[in-house]
C-alpha cells in the first residue's frame, strides 16, 4: 500500500479540478464530490499508515531534471511521521468537508468553497509526502495560496480582503527565509533530499556555522506559517474566513506545517545547539505572549486564534527542547481539539449570528450538542486529566524540564494557567448565565451534518491522548522513532503541577464569569494600561503599521513618483518627438500640387546652396 501513497493527495486534486469545471452546474452536489474525495484520501492514508505499521520507511524518487551534473528528483516518501500526518490531515479535512455542508449551505459560491478546500487539502497532503525541500517548498506555497483564497472567500468584505492579503504577505516574509535556507543547503550539499542533508550534517560536510544558519533561516519560514512571534499578526486576522476554514487551515493543519517542517528536518536542528535554543525560546515566548492576549479578546474566533498561536508555541518549545515526539503528539491532539473548538464556535456563530462573546450567553440549554462538545474541547486544551490535551501538554512540560531550561518550563506552566482561564472565560460567557444576544429566540442547534463531525472530533479529543501515556506505554513515541524511543521518566510532580494550574485557571474563570464572586473588571480596573496593552495585542500591529508598513509605503510612493515623472516622462518625450515630427510631416501632405511644388523648389534651393558653398566636392 505504501508504494501507492502518491494517490492520497490526488483525490482532493481531482475534486478541485472537477468542481472548478462543473461546480456551477452541480451546486449542492459539489459537497458530495468533496466529501467523497477526502474520504477516499482518508482511506488511502489509513492504508498507508497500516502499511507503515507493518513495514519500514518507503521512498520513491524519479529524476525530475538534470542541470549540468546536478540531478533534481521528485518523489514521495512514507516515514513514520509522514504516514501519521497524512491520517491527521485527511481526517480533519474530511470532517471539515462534512461540516461545511451545513455551515456553508445557501452560500452563492458553495461549490467554489469546496473546490478551494480540495486545493488546500491536496497541497497539505503533498507537503506532507514530500521527500525533499524543493518539493516541500512548492507545496508550502500552494498551501499558502489555498489559505489566501479561503481567508478572502468573502472578498466583498473589506476586512476579509485585507486579511487575505496580510496573511499572504506575512507568510511570504517567512518564506523568504525558508527559500534562502533551502538554497544554502543545496549549495552546500548539492541536494534537496532530506536524507542527503541529514547525511551531510552527520559526516560534517555541513559546517556547524552553516548548520545553525540554515536551520534558523528555515525556522523563519516556520515562524511565518505557524504564526509564531513576531510574524503572528496575520493569524488572528485570518479569522475573517469562513469558520470551517479557520478550523481546518488556521487551527488544525496549515499552521501546523511549520511545526511539521521543523520536525521533518529535526536532525538538522539537533545538530545545532543555537538553533534548538532559538526554536525553544521563540516557542516559549509565543506560548505565553499569545495566551495573555487571548485573555481579553471579545471575538470568539480571535480568542481561539490566539489560543492556536499559543499552542503552536508549545509545539515549537517541545521541538526546541529536543522532544520531537512531544511536539508531534501535541500537534495531533491539538489538531483534534482545536478543530473541535472552532467547529463548535462556528456552530454558535451559525446560531446567534454574532462573533462577540459579550452578546452571547446561556446557550447551554439551546445547544444540547454543541455546548457539551465545546466543553470537551475546552477541558482538553486546558489540560484537565484524562483528556488528550493533558497527556500531550504534560509531555511538553516534561521535555522542557528535562532540557534544563527552568525559565522556559515556568513560562509554559504560566501559559497553561492562562490557557485554561481564557478557555473557560469563553465557555462561561458563551454557554452559561443569562442570554444577552438579540437573536435569543432563533438560537437553535446546528443540523446533524455539523454536529456529526464535532462528535467524532469530541471523541478524538479524549481518545487521541491514549496513544502516548505514562500508564499504557508510549506507542506514538516508539513508533515515530522506530523503537529507539526511551521515555525519560518525568518527575511525577510535573503532572501534579499541570493539573493544579489547569484546575486553578478553570476555578478562576468560574469565580469571575460563572459565579461572579469576583467582579469582572477586578484586574482591568487595577491595571487599565496593562488591560489596554493586551486588548490592542501589545500594539504589535500598530508598531508594524508605523514602521515597516510606513517605510515600505513611503518607498513605494517615492518609486511611484520616479516611475510617473521620470520613466514615463522619458517615454513621453520619445513618443512626443516622434508624433510631432509625424504631424509636421503630414501637414505637408495636403493634396495640393502647389505645396508639393513649393517643397520641391525649396529642396532644390537648399541643394543649390550646398552645391554653391562646397563647390560640388562633397559629391
Amino acid at each position, binding site marked *: 500500500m505504501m508504494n501507492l501513497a502518491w494517490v492520497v493527495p490526488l483525490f482532493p486534486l481531482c475534486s478541485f479540478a472537477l468542481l472548478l469545471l462543473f461546480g456551477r452546474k452541480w451546486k449542492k452536489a459539489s459537497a458530495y464530490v468533496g466529501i467523497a474525495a477526502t474520504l477516499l484520501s482518508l482511506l488511502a492514508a489509513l492504508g498507508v499508515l497500516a502499511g507503515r505499521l507493518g513495514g519500514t520507511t518507503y521512498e520513491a524518487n524519479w529524476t525530475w531534471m538534470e542541470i549540468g551534473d546536478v540531478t533534481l528528483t521528485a518523489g514521495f516518501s512514507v516515514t513514520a511521521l509522514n504516514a501519521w500526518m497524512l491520517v491527521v490531515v485527511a481526517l480533519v479535512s474530511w470532517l471539515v468537508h462534512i461540516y461545511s455542508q451545513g455551515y456553508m449551505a445557501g452560500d452563492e459560491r458553495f461549490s467554489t468553497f469546496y473546490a478551494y478546500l480540495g486545493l488546500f487539502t491536496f497541497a497539505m497532503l503533498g507537503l506532507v509526502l514530500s521527500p525533499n525541500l524543493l518539493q516541500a517548498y512548492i507545496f508550502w506555497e500552494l498551501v499558502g495560496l489555498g489559505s489566501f483564497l479561503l481567508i478572502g472567500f468573502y472578498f466583498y468584505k473589506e476586512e476579509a480582503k485585507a486579511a487575505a492579503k496580510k496573511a499572504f504577505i506575512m507568510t511570504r516574509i517567512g518564506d523568504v527565509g525558508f527559500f534562502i535556507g533551502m538554497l544554502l543547503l543545496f549549495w552546500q550539499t548539492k541536494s534537496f533530499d532530506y536524507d542527503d542533508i541529514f547525511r551531510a550534517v552527520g559526516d560534517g560536510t555541513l559546517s556547524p556555522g552553516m548548520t545553525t544558519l540554515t536551520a534558523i533561516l528555515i525556522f523563519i519560514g516556520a515562524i511565518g506559517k505557524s504564526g509564531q512571534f513576531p510574524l503572528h499578526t496575520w493569524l488572528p486576522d485570518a479569522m475573517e474566513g469562513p469558520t470551517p476554514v479557520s478550523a481546518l487551515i488556521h487551527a488544525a493543519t496549515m499552521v501546523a506545517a511549520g511545526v511539521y517542517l521543523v520536525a521533518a528536518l529535526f536532525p538538522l536542528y539537533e545538530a545545532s545547539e543555537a538553533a534548538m535554543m532559538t526554536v525553544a525560546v521563540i516557542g516559549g515566548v509565543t506560548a505565553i505572549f499569545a495566551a495573555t492576549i487571548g485573555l481579553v479578546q471579545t471575538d470568539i474566533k480571535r480568542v481561539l486564534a490566539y489560543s492556536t498561536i499559543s499552542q503552536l508555541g508549545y509545539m515549537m518549545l517541545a521541538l526546541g527542547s529536543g522532544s520531537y515526539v512531544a511536539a508531534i503528539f501535541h500537534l495531533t491532539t491539538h489538531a483534534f481539539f482545536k478543530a473541535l473548538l472552532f467547529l463548535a464556535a462556528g456552530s454558535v456563530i451559525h446560531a446567534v449570528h454574532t462573533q462577540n462573546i459579550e452578546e452571547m450567553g446561556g446557550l447551554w440549554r439551546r445547544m444540547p450538542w454543541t455546548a457539551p462538545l465545546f466543553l470537551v474541547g475546552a477541558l482538553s486544551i486546558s489540560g484537565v486529566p484524562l483528556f488528550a490535551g493533558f497527556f500531550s501538554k504534560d509531555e511538553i512540560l516534561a521535555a522542557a524540564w528535562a532540557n534544563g531550561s527552568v525559565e522556559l518550563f515556568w513560562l509554559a506552566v504560566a501559559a497553561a494557567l492562562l490557557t485554561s482561564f481564557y478557555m473557560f472565560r469563553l465557555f462561561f460567557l458563551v454557554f452559561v448565565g443569562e442570554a444577552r444576544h438579540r437573536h435569543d429566540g432563533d438560537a437553535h442547534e446546528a443540523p446533524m451534518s455539523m454536529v456529526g463531525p464535532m462528535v467524532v472530533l469530541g471523541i478524538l479529543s479524549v481518545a487521541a491522548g491514549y496513544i502516548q501515556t505514562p500508564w499504557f506505554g508510549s506507542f506514538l513515541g516508539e513508533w515515530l522513532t522506530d523503537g529507539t524511543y526511551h521515555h525519560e521518566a518525568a518527575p511525577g510532580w510535573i503532572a501534579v503541577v499541570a493539573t493544579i494550574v489547569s484546575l486553578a485557571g478553570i476555578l478562576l474563570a468560574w469565580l469571575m464569569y460563572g459565579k461572579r464572586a469576583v467582579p469582572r473588571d477586578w484586574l482591568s480596573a487595577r491595571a487599565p494600561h496593562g488591560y489596554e496593552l493586551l486588548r490592542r495585542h501589545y500594539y504589535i500591529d500598530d508598531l508594524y503599521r508605523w514602521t515597516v508598513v510606513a517605510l515600505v509605503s513611503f518607498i513605494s510612493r517615492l518609486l511611484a513618483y520616479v516611475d510617473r515623472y521620470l520613466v514615463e516622462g522619458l517615454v513621453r518625450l520619445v513618443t512626443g518627438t516622434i508624433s510631432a515630427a509625424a504631424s509636421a510631416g503630414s501637414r505637408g501632405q495636403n493634396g495640393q500640387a*502647389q505645396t508639393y511644388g513649393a517643397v520641391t523648389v525649396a529642396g532644390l534651393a537648399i541643394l543649390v546652396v550646398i552645391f554653391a558653398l562646397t563647390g560640388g566636392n562633397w559629391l
Partner: protein
Amino acid sequence: MTLSAYLALALILFCIGLYGALTKRNTVIVLICIELMLNAVNINFVAFAKYGAHPGVHGHVFALFAIAVAAAEAAVGLAALIAFYRNRKTVQVDEANSLKH
C-alpha cells in the same frame, strides 16, 4: 556682358512665374505664370542662339516650337478650366480637391 543681361532678365521672369505658379490660388493667374516661365526659357534660347558659344539657327527654331506648344497648352488648360468652372462654379486651384475627399 550682353548675354548676362538677357540671362538675368530671363531669370527674373522665371522666378516671378515660379512664384506665381506656386502661390496663386486663381487658376487663370497660375496659367499666366506658367506662360511667363515658358517665355523666360524662350528668351534664353534666343539669347544663346545669338550670343552663345555656337551661334546658329537652332535656338530660334526651338523658341518657335516652344511658343507653339505653349499656345496649345494654354488652349487645353483654359478649356479644362472652363469645364471645371462649369462644374464647380469656381476657378480656385485649392478647391479642385474632389479626389482628396
